[in-house]
């Protein structure tokens, strides 16, 4: 018999599951009690990725 994972009631977290056209599931999580963030973007917070620094790859 498989051990059950310890679970705890998640206050404030809501989830909604849908099935995509190809049969895969998708779960949307929302937190109504926590304000949505203004989602800072990289342009507001910092530089983009190092673009691989491919030409500078040195072992």
């Amino acid at each position, binding site marked *: 018999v498989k051990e059950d994972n310890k679970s705890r009631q998640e206050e404030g977290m809501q989830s909604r599951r849908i099935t995509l056209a190809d049969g895969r599931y998708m779960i949307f999580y929302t937190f109504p009690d926590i304000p949505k963030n203004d989602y*800072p973007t990289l342009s507001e917070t910092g530089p983009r990725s190092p673009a691989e620094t491919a030409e500078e790859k040195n072992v």
Partner: protein
Amino acid sequence: MSELRFNPLLGEWVATATQRQDRTFLPPPGFCPLCPTKPGGFPTEVPESDYDIVAFENRFPSLKIMPGEPAVASTELYPVRPSQGVCEVILYSPIHDTTLAAQPVEQLYKLVKVWRDRFTELGALEFVKYVFIFENKGEAVGVTLHHPHGQIYAYPFVPPKAEQESEQCLLHMQKTGRCLLCDIVAEEKRFGQRMVAENESFAAYIPFFARYPYETHISAKRHLQALTDLTAQEERDLAAILKQVLAAFDRLFDISFPYIMSLHQRPTDGEGDYNHYHFHIEFYPPMRTATKLKFLAGSEAGAGMFINDTLPETKAPEFRKLIKPVEWKI
């Protein structure tokens, strides 16, 4: 075509997943399959945008809930089994041009709760023996889609690294009566020089045995085995120290810092309580300087012995200076 093939030389399973050769590779701007579908736009994988975090089955999985039969027959020398498991994608944000490090701490707090939920649900599946939560960040570690996301692999066996860690923890407990990770955290705190950050519940440090220059571990201070053991305060503290470490990574070289993040939790195979194990998170950043990458070359890939060109005792103080306080809005 997908199956698990056993490597008798190492005693490990290898997944074949030929369909992954066709997965989307660095699409041009405006054609990200992980962005929400826009009215009149091309249909992406995500039909809605009103969410905080999304979890869904990977379109190009290496493990499937209902796998097909293996394409090759199993033999005594080469055992083969169906590639049963689950591969999920976790979207951190509906916004494309952002990263986990750029999110406010509240978003990381939400992510910790989602991680916990996914660990609970996937770990309860009969065929799942280990739930591995991770993120590949940046093209330097092989990312093919830039939309901020992590992944979860729910394996039908305990993978080699988790098994090795668990065995070492068990040996240490049998030998000393103590938890190995608890001893490591105590030693790093006592020595101090390799510490990066800490709060009431977690410690971040570049360990004595680091294999990468900025390899950073975040360990729970309390002896616990999985996200499901965290108290509400510990969830907040985990979000806070994650925010501090991730933001400091980006400050190291003033770039969006590439890394592999891996959560190490107890197996879910029902083979005991794994009280000897200890929850922690490991980061493997490939950069050894602002312009040079650490590769897994001959010794690392061929022999399994890592060579670190730096000392944790000098890298940790450099990294520690970049840690800033976290500002909560809730």
